């Protein structure tokens, strides 16, 4: 099975620390079915912004959707933590 569908999420943070914490927090959890999907993370600095890039690869759009949805849901919790504490 090949990873025909992929999605790159690009999330801008003001601080390097924030992008890095988000990456560490998210990347701990393994992919439930590694044969069906793959995730990789990268941080870059572009136009005064620390971007967290999350590359998702999946065998189908449905698998891609559930992965992307879960990761963004977690990201929202992470961002809320940054904002409140």
């Amino acid at each position, binding site marked *: 099975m090949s990873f025909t569908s992929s999605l790159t999420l690009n999330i801008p943070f003001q601080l390097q620390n924030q992008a890095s*914490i988000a990456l560490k*927090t998210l990347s701990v*959890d393994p992919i439930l079915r590694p044969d069906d999907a793959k995730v990789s993370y990268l941080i870059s600095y572009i136009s005064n912004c620390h971007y967290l890039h999350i590359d998702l690869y999946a065998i189908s759009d449905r698998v891609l959707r559930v992965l992307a949805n879960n990761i963004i849901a977690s990201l*929202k*919790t992470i961002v809320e*933590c940054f904002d*409140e*504490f």
Partner: protein
Amino acid sequence: MVVDLDQHLKPGKSSYVAIGLEGSANKLGVGLIRHHPGQLSLSNRAEVLANIRDTYITPPGEGFLPRDTARHHRNWVVRLIKQALDEARLGKDDIDVICFTKGPGMGAPLQSVVIAARTLSLLWDIPLVGVNHCIGHIEMGREITGAHNPVVLYVSGGNTQVIAYSKQKYRIFGETLDIAIGNCLDRFARTLEISNDPSPGYNIEQLAKKGKHFVELPYTVKGMDLSMSGILAYIDEIANTLFNKKNAKPLQNEEGKNKNKKNNLCFSLQECLFSMLVEITERAMAHVNSNEVLIVGGVGCNERLQEMMKIMVSDRNGSIFATDERFCIDNGIMIAHAGLLSYRMGDTTSLEDTVCTQQYRTDQVLVKWRDD
């Protein structure tokens, strides 16, 4: 030999503070606890600084899906942490360790909470400790009641276990072979379409109080273990025959009668299940030669269960210990307490080891903080 719990007190601090995050099922709990140096004892109690909980409640007749439960936890976790810190008037600098439930429990809800735990740990530079949910119940129960070395009956929606301590492990003497007791009661509540607010089990208990007539049900103790799915199927069948026959809506004047039937069924189910629990608990007491029983877990709040257990225990000249709903229903403070005990023995959980696990047996944990 007595374990030394104070090798890791931070310089300049005179006590330890832990925050605990629990979300293994439909309760989201955040607790803050303080330990003073030295062994915990009646004169050196743990201090509860905050203990906040929010429960995800489903429509009547429905169980809860992990995805909705996870959504509940996700959307409340940051607000609850803030509220707990405000209530305790503490900030990040006061906290020694962030404790979270590693398992057992439902995957998605556990995961939605550990995300917040990891983020705060990295943001505040405070270590993490992953806690076994069952150990949390046991240690909090011991701390609150002062029970020294009890046989523990752990009864909740996800677990039914009789546990006794031996050589730094909480060993499981008997357990359910199929569904948990709380699950059995909840599912019967669904059959009867009883409200889930505040909890289906609580509402069954109230109906059972009004029941008088005992309906014979299968009694399925198997050695040290018990089985409950057959009993549930049996009583569901009775209830469906009585109330849920299509085209046979109860007539106005039959409503009172139906109410009584419901009460009697709830009463009978409780009596039957609780008798089985009493039997295996008594056997475990004889086995380990203990005369203390500690009841923990959500079903442990049930007054009838406590009463039946008390009758058995007083026959053996023993004592029974139970906590109220603040501590027996899932909560964050028990996670903070058990995690802090572990932290005081020098344990922390590295980020890579914070992946939650749905299966995590009580006897997998090395109880370093006890050496009796």
